[in-house]
């Protein structure tokens, strides 16, 4: 049974890789044979070569470091603030009842419309970028915290009382690990939203970062740079996501009861 499942899992990932490889190969051929003109898109193989070049030259190192730094800061802020806000909202049921419809429709509002507000508040630079990214990411962490706390089986809290544990010890040793799989979903979403928030904000309100560099390359017809940086973002996002999915999978496996 287990080996059967793992065999089907392996063939699934082989198939997934094959689909991606086929897509890349198709684009490669279309570019090579001039169906897609060089002025529109460069071949994926050239994207990879350009990427190694810019990574080796260090031309965009400052931008890359700045973007990754902003994503990290946004993630940490949205996870921390979202978790604390979630705890407060959870402990005040009337506040929660009032806020829940707002949280549910939160992502209906395009957060980016607030960029003029943040520019006037923080000026052009990392401050405004991080603010937008946090605004985008925080709601998912609040929602995840609430659902995590909701799903702690009451019998586990009762068990804590049977061990005569203090409120704080129960929170740290029972409630937190019991809610961990849900909290991790919030962390995963916060990372994704921070990525989107930072890169997209750099397009419109920054003079540095990968998003800015892509916009700059686009405006100056530097296709090589532009596609190399786009590839870098895809690789970074996919890499981080794969890592987080690995952890998530382990946590979810334990949640099945």
């Amino acid at each position: 049974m287990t080996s059967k499942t793992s065999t089907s899992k392996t063939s699934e990932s082989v198939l997934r890789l094959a689909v991606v490889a086929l897509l890349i190969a198709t684009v490669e051929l279309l570019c090579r044979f001039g169906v897609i003109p060089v002025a529109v898109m460069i071949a994926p193989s050239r994207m990879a070569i350009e990427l190694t070049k810019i990574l080796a030259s260090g031309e965009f190192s400052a931008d890359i470091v700045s973007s990754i730094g902003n994503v990290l800061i946004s993630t940490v802020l949205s996870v921390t603030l979202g978790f604390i806000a979630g705890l407060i909202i959870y402990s005040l049921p009337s506040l929660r009842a009032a806020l829940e419809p707002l949280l549910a429709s939160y992502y209906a509002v395009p957060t980016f419309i607030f960029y003029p507000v943040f520019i006037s508040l923080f000026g052009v630079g990392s401050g405004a970028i991080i603010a937008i990214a946090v605004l985008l990411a925080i709601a998912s962490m609040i929602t995840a915290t609430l659902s995590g706390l909701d799903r702690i089986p009451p019998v586990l809290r009762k068990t804590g009382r049977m061990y005569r544990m203090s409120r704080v010890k129960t929170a740290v040793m029972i409630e937190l690990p019991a809610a961990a799989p849900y909290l991790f979903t919030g962390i995963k979403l916060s990372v994704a939203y921070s990525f989107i928030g930072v890169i997209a904000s750099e397009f419109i309100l920054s003079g540095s970062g990968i998003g800015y560099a892509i916009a700059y390359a686009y405006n100056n017809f530097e296709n090589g740079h532009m596609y190399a940086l786009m590839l870098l973002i895809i690789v970074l996002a996919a890499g981080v996501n794969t890592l987080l999915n690995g952890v998530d999978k382990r946590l979810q496996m334990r949640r099945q009861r």
Partner: protein
Amino acid sequence: MMALAAQPGAKGTPLAQPSREEAHASLQGVTRLYHSEGRTLHALGPIDLNLVKGEFFSVVGPSGCGKSTLLDILAGLNPPQAGTVQFEGKPVVGVPEGVGVVFQEDASFPWLNVRDNIAFGLRRAGIDPSEITRRVDYAIGFMGLKDFAASHPAQLSGGMRQRVCIARTLVLQPRLILLDEPFGALDQQTRLLMGDELLRLWRETSATVLLITHALDEAAMLSSRVGVMSTRPGTFIDIVETGWDKDRDSRVVSTPHFGDITARLWEKLRVEAMKIMSASKS
């Protein structure tokens, strides 16, 4: 045929019981009310119950009669509005040391493996690591979990998870073990076998056991005494002494005496269950 030494009594009349002085744990005049939306619900009592040290006492009763409330009160998880609760001569305020509970729901910690689940309470109690290892190893062997020590609860069946919870309670060597329908979710065969394990455990630890169950056969097979509760507000309407030997096991179910006990329990319980049925019809 063994006689069923017991004292059937009408609701409200006290049943003959061991004296409070010789009781290991006791409830006197315990009453529990719940207030919600301006209404008061009389859930339980007044209850008088004296548990003798080392006895196996089961409580049966119609659903919603307050069986679990009774257990929570004895465990110090839920204070009564009236009456007194004592364990080893001291009033119960909060969860007393020496009392262990196995809940109806799966209370295993999904993030810990079997070994760490069982050791959890011992580590909290600050017991010496070598002693923890000794007790956990013993409990793992006793509960037949040897091949699963490194497994997480998600990889185990419902019955095995409940065994983990029983082991987790057992390693703390409680002097009073409270079991709230621990086999409720299990199939009949597993329940009978778990009952045997429970009897083995009870003999070995010489702890006092209070078992809440809805299964009459389980109560009749396992117990030294069985208390039958009325519909809400739950009080004891009968306490049946089974007269089994201490080294009994699930094979007693094939004896005529077992039939007599279950018949007696059902006779009392049937009246109460019918009250609920007719109340829900009208």
